[in-house]
């Protein structure tokens, strides 16, 4: 056992911009022994910050380990906290200038324009890892409880890992061809396991959720032999429910206005219970009442109040045995 952790922050992708500057994308590596290599990716969307904070908390934990018991890192941890560097630095969800959703550019190619090259560089960096966790933070409109989303094509391998990640929900979804261009699908279909975590809300951080996920990631890394079996970890306190397309109910706005919720996120709701109202700033009446269609758990709740007819306000997962 070497008993040392080598830590370095380095540029793994660079490209020239039109006027003198270069766009550099950096990662931080923590290398211990010859055990498994694992990675965390965040900030593919420039308005999603929860994953950046998770990377910070993981780095803080690993730096502490470096000081106190470095021999407990048996493998290598790679943190890619800010993949859409320019988007994060400019409050833009997509890749600025290219107006592209980076998570629709995979697997990319080495010779084309920036989004393609960046995707290819990230694929090349992550391929062969024992596990990649790609952290997303919903968007500015909706707040999500900590959850893993898994394409049913890969559920045999991924669900057992996801169960141990200290999250509240595993959402199995059908295969959608448009999602084949995500980093997770591209990695999973090339034999590098990748879990997609969704939690919190865009442009904010939710420290409790981040700490919850940090505990789960560390526990999984210990199971995989990246961390020593006897290393002390934060407690696992959450067990996930399983949702799929058959028990998730969507509540879309029947009219436009301001949605004001009357219940808190991540609570049990009864069929017919009032979840919120849509009101108008021009007068005092209620335009529409939003009620739960089933007995279940409110796992998505609108954060941004204005809605158009059709805007998603909430998702409720029906409880087994509940009325629907």
């Amino acid at each position, binding site marked *: 056992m070497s008993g040392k952790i080598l830590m370095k922050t380095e540029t793994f992708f660079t*490209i*020239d*911009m*039109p*006027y*003198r500057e270069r*766009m550099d994308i950096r990662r931080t590596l923590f290398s211990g022994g010859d055990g498994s290599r694992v990675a965390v990716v965040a900030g593919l969307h420039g308005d999603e910050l929860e994953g950046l904070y998770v990377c910070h908390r993981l780095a803080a934990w690993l730096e502490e380990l470096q000081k106190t018991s470095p021999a407990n890192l048996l493998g290598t941890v790679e943190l890619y906290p800010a993949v859409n560097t320019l988007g994060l630095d400019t409050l833009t*969800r997509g890749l600025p*200038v290219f*107006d592209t959703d980076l998570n*629709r550019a995979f697997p990319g190619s080495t*010779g*084309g*324009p*920036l989004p*393609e*090259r960046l995707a290819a560089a990230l694929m090349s960096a992550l391929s062969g890892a024992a596990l990649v966790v790609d952290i997303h933070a919903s968007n500015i*409109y909706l707040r999500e409880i900590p959850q893993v989303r898994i394409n049913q094509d890969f559920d045999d391998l991924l669900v057992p890992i996801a169960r141990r990640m200290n999250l509240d929900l595993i959402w199995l979804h059908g295969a*959608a*061809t*448009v999602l*084949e*261009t995500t980093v997770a699908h591209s990695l999973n279909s090339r034999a590098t396991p990748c879990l997609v975590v969704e939690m919190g809300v865009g442009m904010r951080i939710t420290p409790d959720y981040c700490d919850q996920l940090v505990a789960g990631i560390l526990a999984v890394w210990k199971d995989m032999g990246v961390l020593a079996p006897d290393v002390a970890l934060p407690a696992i306190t959450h067990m996930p429910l399983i949702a799929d397309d058959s028990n998730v109910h*969507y509540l*879309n706005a029947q*009219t*436009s*206005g*301001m949605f004001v919720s009357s219940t808190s996120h991540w609570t049990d709701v009864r069929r017919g219970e009032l979840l919120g109202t849509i009101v*108008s*700033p*021009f007068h005092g009446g209620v335009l529409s009442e939003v009620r739960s269609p089933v007995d279940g758990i409110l796992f998505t709740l609108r954060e941004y109040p*204005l*809605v*158009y*007819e*059709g*805007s*998603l306000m909430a998702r409720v997962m029906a409880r087994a045995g509940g009325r629907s």
Partner: protein
Amino acid sequence: MKRNLLCMTAPVREGFDIPCHEIGPKSAHPAVALVAGLHGDEINGVFILSRLADFLNSVEEGKYPELKLVKRVLIIPAVNVLGVNLRTRTWPFDKTDLNRMFPGNTIGETTERIAYAVLEATKRADYRIDIHTASADFEEVPQVRLHGPSDAERATARMFGLTAVMERSLSPVFTTTMMASWKVWPGESFVLRVGQAGTVQLDHCQRVFRSLVSFLGRVGVLEGVQIAVEDEEVCYFEKSSAFRVYAEKAGTFVSDRQVGRWVRAGQELGYIYDSFSGHVIEKVVSPVPGLLTGIRRHPLLFEGDLILRVNRKS
């Protein structure tokens, strides 16, 4: 006749609608459906279709006695109405791409409801035409784009009389486009790509306007059209005929070349300058002899950006 495809409410402004023109004899379904402005910044298509509606309405009013509209034509100049007014490609409220929301549905997101209404109005037409441009950074020669076409579509594509017909496979990425939803239905579907976003390019618009009138004549919807003998041949370009030049260096790209011209191998088509020092750092030349079908218009280049595309005649 103007009809509203869909009327919707908005959070604080008045409700809005998506209007269309229905011109010609009444029938259960239009013979030809033309759509533009799924992306709000693609103004060439909006302009072409509003002008076409004006022309066909004039035909109906008897202003062109030699012409007769014998089948119904449906025209939606702009689907993303608010996007046109606010000059944004996507639906301005939630930044979703309307051309990634098909087939849509009546109880889903706002943009899914819009997609559903547009698909319902157009899907049963014999011929369906969706007009797009490239981005604001790039100019495309006016062309017919075919996505995984049938032999009938390959043959019909020539009836537009545009110089370039380009075939592409239907990639999984495009599953949620209007084109992919159209293809489920009997009938033929075409995309026209015309110039660049954010502007009206009069030459391109006039050329495509004429090509649409000729098309309506050739497919027997508009009787009495004198089909001009084309002075340019129609070229059918397979995917493998495209040669692209990417920026090996970042900088400022300048070119005075026009799309739709035939170029020689090695012909100079533009220069890349260092944006700070002003030095010429690269001379951009055509890799092959062929038709210049697309060229970069935004001068500022990232390393790796597409500069131009030349299609070689087979």
